[in-house]
């Protein structure tokens, strides 16, 4: 009897993965971030129209540790990071697993510009030679990386303008099919300044209230991370949660209880920025893997 070949042949990448995770952990520890673990099973998640949670005995598996991380910020922990599993129902594709590894970090007194700089430093720590070969392309990682606003990306790459796409309800489709494949091909790209209505937990831009201080990081067309300058206004946050929850229920999704402890404690949260990075996708990039299947031992289909 031979062992399972699909598992055996992933060994070189799983060894690389273990080293990458070690480097990431050391990077944050050395920069005075406290590593924390928050519960995977929660009464509800932050309501978001297009993210579905897996149910668990009347509660839910978390789709991100975001709310617990922010409650810790509000309780006075200034710099936090977490590496954990997250679950999102029915997400399975070449770049998606319904159970995946997330790296989140939060820093008080920072905004999303400082997080962009920190992403540049993290990738430099992981790839000291400053160049990455991925799917036949060489990506130059030397900072500073391109900052491209969502409006500019629509002007440069899309068949519709941002205003037209929003009016037609085709924003996501244009981003996924026309814009994403063009981002981060020579060097990484930060796609910045999302329309406020598409950033439920992000702070409005101080001078342009129609956009929020949200960015997504793309490398070689792969969406790697999502970040905000965090919204700290509990009244505004409650208003946005109510709108997202209404959209969820209108689409027939199970109701979430309102996250009252989070909303209550948000008033005590300092100005802060936070980011969620798909760790499996980071490993894909750093090991040249075409699919997410190659960087985890077990996919759901193998169980």
């Amino acid at each position, binding site marked *: 009897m031979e062992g399972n070949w699909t598992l055996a042949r992933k060994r070189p990448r799983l060894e690389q993965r273990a080293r990458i995770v070690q480097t990431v952990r050391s990077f944050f520890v050395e920069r005075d971030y406290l590593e924390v673990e928050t519960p995977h099973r929660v009464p509800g998640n932050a309501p978001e129209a297009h993210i579905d949670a897996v149910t668990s005995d009347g509660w839910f598996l978390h789709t991100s540790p975001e709310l617990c991380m922010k409650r810790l910020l509000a309780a006075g922990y200034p710099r936090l990071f977490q590496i954990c599993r997250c679950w999102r129902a029915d997400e*399975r594709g070449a770049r998606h697993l319904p159970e995946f590894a997330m790296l989140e970090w939060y820093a008080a007194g920072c905004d999303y510009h400082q997080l962009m700089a920190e992403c540049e430093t993290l990738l430099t720590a992981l790839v000291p030679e400053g160049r990455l070969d991925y799917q036949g392309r060489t990506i130059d990682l030397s900072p500073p990386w391109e900052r491209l606003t969502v409006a500019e990306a629509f002007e440069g790459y899309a068949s519709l303008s941002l205003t037209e796409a929003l009016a037609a309800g085709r924003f996501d*489709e244009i981003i996924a099919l026309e814009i994403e494949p063009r981002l981060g091909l020579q060097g990484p790209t930060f796609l910045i300044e999302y329309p406020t209505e598409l950033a439920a937990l992000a702070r409005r831009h101080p001078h342009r209230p129609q956009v929020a201080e949200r960015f997504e990081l793309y490398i070689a067309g792969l969406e790697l991370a999502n970040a905000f300058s965090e919204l700290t206004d509990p009244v505004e946050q409650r208003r946005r949660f109510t709108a997202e929850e209404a959209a969820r229920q209108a689409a027939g999704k199970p109701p979430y209880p309102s996250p009252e402890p989070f909303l209550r404690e948000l008033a005590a949260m300092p100005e802060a920025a936070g980011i969620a990075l798909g760790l499996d996708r980071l490993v894909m990039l750093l090991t040249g893997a075409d699919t997410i299947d190659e960087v985890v031992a077990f996919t759901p289909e193998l169980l």
Partner: protein
Amino acid sequence: MLSCSDLRKGSKLIIDGEPHVIVQFDFTKPGKGQALYKCKLRNMITGSLFDRTYRSGETFETAALEERDMQYLYRDETGYVFMDQKSYEQVTLPEEALGDQKFFLVDNMKVNVLMFGDRGIGLTLPNFVNLRVTQSDPWVKGDTASGNNKPATVETGYTLQVPAFVEQGTLIQIDTRTGEYATRVKE
């Protein structure tokens, strides 16, 4: 009825009254946005290929096609010939309808042929097939970059990745659903 989250590579749907099979499938979702289902579809009657992207919320009619137990006989200039095990009726499938499945057919193999009226339009193979390796270079010890695998070609001309210990002449089992190596076969 199928919803978007039921779609897979190999799903069969009715579009404009004709059966179609999804030959390539990918789920994609821009950060925090709506899910998109990118499909390459083949019309199972005409063989024509096209791309289509569906959004969550759309529904599909399943193509209810009759499957018949048949045996693979031989290949001729028109395609691959199968015989119904009960009626002895013969059905020919063109090469385009088979794709990579043509590499996993061995003489007298029992298969399911998918019928649209009296026309054969697709095939379900046994999950595993045994094929002999006809060509594979010895593994270079210390080649850790490629891990412990190397390419091999089997008797039907199909090339796949196998473990380092598989040699030319070894009989191996291949998973016909994924096209991947499963195990060596004891002889």
